[in-house]
């Protein structure tokens, strides 16, 4: 059943640009997780996980097992380190293309 439906075909292209364009694959240096990464600037990072990648990440499993913790976790420090390493190696282009 249709939900929020765009009435202009260009909107679909916008959706593609903002959600899927320019994602670079980055593999974790410590586990088998591979994510899609985009960096519009040095301090901006967009990380797209998949359920496969999440399953491979021992950090999230460890955080989820902590009984007292909240059920939402800000991120995996190992993946952050892996992305930083990829940036240093010049594997991730930094910069936005007209905002996306």
């Amino acid at each position: 059943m249709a939900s929020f439906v765009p009435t202009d075909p260009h909107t679909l292209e916008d959706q593609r640009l903002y959600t899927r364009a320019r994602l670079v694959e980055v593999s974790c240096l410590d586990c088998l997780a591979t994510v899609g990464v985009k960096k519009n600037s040095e301090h901006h990072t967009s990380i797209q996980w998949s359920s496969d990648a999440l399953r491979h990440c021992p950090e999230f499993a460890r955080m989820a097992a902590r009984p007292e913790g909240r059920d939402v976790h800000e991120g995996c420090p190992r993946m952050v380190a892996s992305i930083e390493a990829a940036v240093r190696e010049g594997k991730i282009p930094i910069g936005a293309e007209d905002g996306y």
Partner: protein
Amino acid sequence: MSDTRFLDAGTPPERFARGWHCLGLAKDFSDGKPHAVEAFGGKLVVWQDTQGGLNVLDGYCRHMGGDLTQGTVKGDEIACPFHDWRWGGDGKCKAIPYARRVPLRARTQKYPTVVRNGQLLIWHDVENSAPDMDILPPELPGIGTDEYTDWTWEVLDVPGAHCREIIDNVVDMAHFFYIHFAFPTHFKNVFEGQTATQYMNSTGRPDKAGEGYGDENSILKSVATYYGPSYMINWITSEYKGFITEILLINCHVPTSQNSFKLQFGLAVKKPEGVDDATAEYIGKKMTKMFGEGFMQDVHIWLNKAPVQNPLLCEEDGPVYQLRRWYEQFYVDKADVTPEMTDRFEFEVDTTKANEYWRAEVAENLAKKKAEDDAGAGEGADAGTPPIMTGT
């Protein structure tokens, strides 16, 4: 070809979101009377039975459409004011005092209920699925005990906007500066499964309201998570000159039509050590007033803005498109939920440039104000309630 950009208003969904919706504080429904709640394009009736359980049915009797919210609670059932048909919390008609027997088909729409953290939640799904207990909002330790103040509770009517407008605020870093006069320094979003979270650190703006939370010395650390389409828990730590206050803010809404919703919020303060109950209650009330003004600032924007399906974003904006992709899962059949709607997604907004510009703007405003004050033209503006806002 024209390069002019046009707003795509899109068409809103016909259905209402699947998930848990909060109707208010459980104690407010526990007086043995029927209560009317406007929701999902109609009206619901809420009442407490003799076991203390809360029941929610569609508000209109399946006989001749009598308004059950104007009926009477008789035993465990709600009795229609029109012909005294008795409806149970399970949605079945239990008795018709003047009839030989109850028609077999006498079943109405019931909404499964759960009381969590002192609040009444109901499960809504146009597919009529069983309530998903695994995705209930978490229980909040300490709530309902002496550790926290009682919930405050406020309801705001938003008569001319789709409730997706309030959801969009989860990713809206810059509006905190312009609408709520806060100064976000750290801003990150995480979407995963049926949760969407905003992490934000912010300070007050010294150029807006001179005291308390408008102060740069006021530091807020906020984690705000939507559990499903309509219920947000916001964990807030407020630090002011070494004085730390922990606040729990609930921000939730019930859609009342395709273009209106009721916004509700409630707040509980962890009683600070060495502070008596009356003072803690006072802090809670004051905070509620401040957040109330924050929500009103949002409502004013929603009631006047245009719906936009194709927002144009700059580098400093949050992930609106990904947030909406996440939100979409509640508006399609369960079988049509795709992995990309629920896959984990993280987005850290770069606040460095924005902070640089905003610091300059604040300094300029302060200088202007000082010049006016020195000239004796200051009229004591901004003497109102200092602003505070997180999550929304």
